[in-house]
């Protein structure tokens, strides 16, 4: 986002006929209006250009988090079930140093807070893309609040903290990995100099025979399905049969219900047969088998959201899914036909 006043002033000057249009192509395109630019120009740069005025407290953020974020990220930002964890892996010494030691010392899952070098990036991303199933639904103050709560969970700010557009620079100065990035022109410039050099040796380039240091294990041949079904039926080669007696591909016809479950991303939280965040679809079907009123209750729960039936993590309301789709999915999971 750029200096708004200058841009607006220019536009008004243009509309007043004071400035000639830059058009090289007559009749193509039109000036963007100030309201249109404001609606789309939502990016926030590392120097906080584009950051709107506003504020939010840790307490407000916690309330939002528990309702809209915890189902994927866990109540403490620690969940590794759906997405990599947001919180974890940082120490007070990292905050002093500006570099996260565990990035070097351990091979554990890298969390967002271990990697995050720009608070602007976190703010910008929450505003444009979160929550996962309702992006851009948070107000500016809500984005400040959620950001404040994330900083609190990472033990960077106290529980009574309020984050706003004026003190966000202080938060940047506390990020554990704030000095964790460096440019490398060799791989960004059009004519950058490479960092790795090989030569085109043609004969006797290694002594003796090539030594294999890593090999796809025979015991894992079937991890990617039956490779025979991933290769053409004619030609110089065939795919290796990795699953004996596997069904021919394409013979499994997914029902409309399962297709809808996939379309609407339900498996983000509900596996077909395994628990992810919420119960598996199979166990829901089993619990309510033979229950005459279950279908209507489940349709209402999917629509309005709920918690307490299977655990404490709430299922968020599903406002964007057509009623018919919810009904088809509920009937399918109650049928147990999967």
């Amino acid at each position, binding site marked *: 986002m*750029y200096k708004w006043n200058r*841009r607006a002033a220019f536009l008004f000057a243009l509309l007043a006929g004071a400035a000639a249009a830059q058009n*090289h192509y007559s009749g193509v395109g039109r000036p963007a209006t100030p309201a249109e630019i404001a609606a789309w120009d939502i990016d926030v740069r590392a120097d906080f250009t584009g950051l709107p005025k506003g504020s939010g407290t840790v307490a407000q953020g916690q309330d939002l988090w528990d309702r809209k974020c915890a189902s994927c990220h866990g109540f403490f930002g620690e969940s590794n079930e759906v997405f990599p964890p947001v919180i974890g892996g940082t120490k007070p010494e990292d905050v002093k140093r500006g*570099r*996260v030691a565990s990035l070097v010392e351990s091979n554990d899952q890298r969390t967002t807070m271990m990697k995050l070098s720009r608070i602007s990036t976190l703010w910008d991303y929450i505003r444009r893309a979160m929550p996962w199933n309702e992006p851009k639904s948070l107000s500016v103050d809500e984005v400040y609040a959620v950001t404040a709560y994330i900083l609190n969970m990472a033990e960077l700010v106290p529980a009574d903290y309020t984050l706003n557009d004026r003190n966000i620079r202080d938060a940047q100065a506390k990020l554990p990995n704030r000095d964790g990035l460096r440019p490398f022109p060799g791989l*960004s410039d059009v004519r950058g100099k490479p960092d790795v050099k090989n030569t085109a040796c043609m004969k006797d380039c290694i002594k003796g*025979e090539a030594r294999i240091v890593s090999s796809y294990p025979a015991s894992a041949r079937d991890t990617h399905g039956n490779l025979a079904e991933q290769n053409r039926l004619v030609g*110089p*080669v065939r795919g290796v049969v990795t699953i*004996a007696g596997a069904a021919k591909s394409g013979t499994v016809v997914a029902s409309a219900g399962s297709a809808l479950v996939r379309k609407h991303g339900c498996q983000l939280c509900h596996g077909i047969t395994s628990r992810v965040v919420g119960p598996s679809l199979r166990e829901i079907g089993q619990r309510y088998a033979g229950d005459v009123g279950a279908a209507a209750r489940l349709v209402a729960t999917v629509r309005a959201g709920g918690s307490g039936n299977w655990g404490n993590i709430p299922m968020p309301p599903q406002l964007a899914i057509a009623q018919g789709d919810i009904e088809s999915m509920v009937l399918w999971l109650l049928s147990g036909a999967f």
Partner: protein
Amino acid sequence: MIASSRGRGMSETDYKGVKHGNGRVAVPPVEAGTSAGTRPPAGRLRRAPESFLSAQQIAEVQAGRRGFLRKALVAASASLSVPALAQGTGAHNGDPAILELPAHSRTLGLPVAERGYGLPSQFEKNLARRESPGLTRVAAASVSFAPLQGLFGIITPSGLHFERHHQGWHDIDPVGHRLMVMGLVKQPKVYTMDDLMRLPSVSRMHFIECGANTGMEWGNVAVPTVQYTHGMLSCSEFTGVPLKVLLDDCGVDMKRARFVLAEGADGASLTRTIPMDRVLDDVLVAWGMNGEMLRPENGYPLRLVVPGVQGVSWVKWLRRIEVGDQPFETREEVLHYVDMMPDGVARQYTWTQECKSVITTPSGGQHLLDRGQYNVSGLAWSGRGRIRRVDVSFDGGRNWRTARLEGPTLTKCLTRFNIDWVWDGGPAILQSRAIDSTGYVQPRAAQLRAVRGTRSIYHNNAIQSWQVDASGEVRNVQVE
């Protein structure tokens, strides 16, 4: 012992092991000068029935339906040896595929326009985009890989183009789609698709490769086939207007403009920074792909094309271009698509896709049908320019021969290479090594690791090794 490799220039009748036109198959002689000691006896490999029969067919054979066995074996005739054919038919008159006229030669075919939009043959279903199990947990923020193991030439069929979405894909109505150009310009503007498609367009063939392609293999072998090692790679002819034309149209402030931000219209509204030197060089705002509009999964109706640069910068469903004087430090530039170095600091803005190649036939998870002639075929590409040369090794990198490059060899585009090889039944390790127009030679994995360690995830352009064992099975391996 490593399989022998033959020089170029053999005559047409020299292709060892390839069936000639009379329906009889000569058993290929053992090649002189190779190591008979470590090889299985001469003759065609006889695959177990599971290799070409379905489970149902096997069940029918087991149930004693001998006639069915014959039919099924004939259906798999490409891999058939003479003894097997004789077993099935008990006759030596010739190939039933010739002697018994098939239905398609004796009946009326389908009319024109039976399919308003044509589809591949029903026999080609095996070549499909696939996810790599366990790689991602959410299908809307995942990857599907292109089946490179079955593709020819350099153009990826649009329906097989790899996918990478950050928050799912949409099929956007082009009538309502808008592109806004703003920031350091004299006149911020809005363009409809109608507007854009009236501008002077160009068509260019370019590869697109995800920065994380081959990323699972930084530390060790992790996936079985070339679809999963290299399938975040595709190549198309893109049609659109150079971004420079739009920036000129808006009166870009060239004194201050250093970078542009590209933003998508999807839920993620994914954003990436593109430097002005690339914008002025060859960046396109594209709507066309391989003669038709972009596919929805690839950004319909509008995407950015940034030749030579990792795929995440080719923003799909493009809605906004903002001209600025600094990089924008977006999520995909701070938290992801950065290269973790051994000291724990991540390199930022490493978007060039360096020179790389891979043999696609034969490749991991395949098996050779028998000994003899093979056209070893693969792809080479470079984000810095054209492919100048590709060398192929059959002994794990000890000795190399230069492959044929099939034209055209275009800048920042896939190049197909081929080389003849006679497999003598001995073990072999196949590798390819590309050299681009800057003279850069594709590195070995050990050379990459010596500089960047093993935690980088992104930008792995190491030489790929495929091991062929005595049974003809090809396996993904890494050599020292």
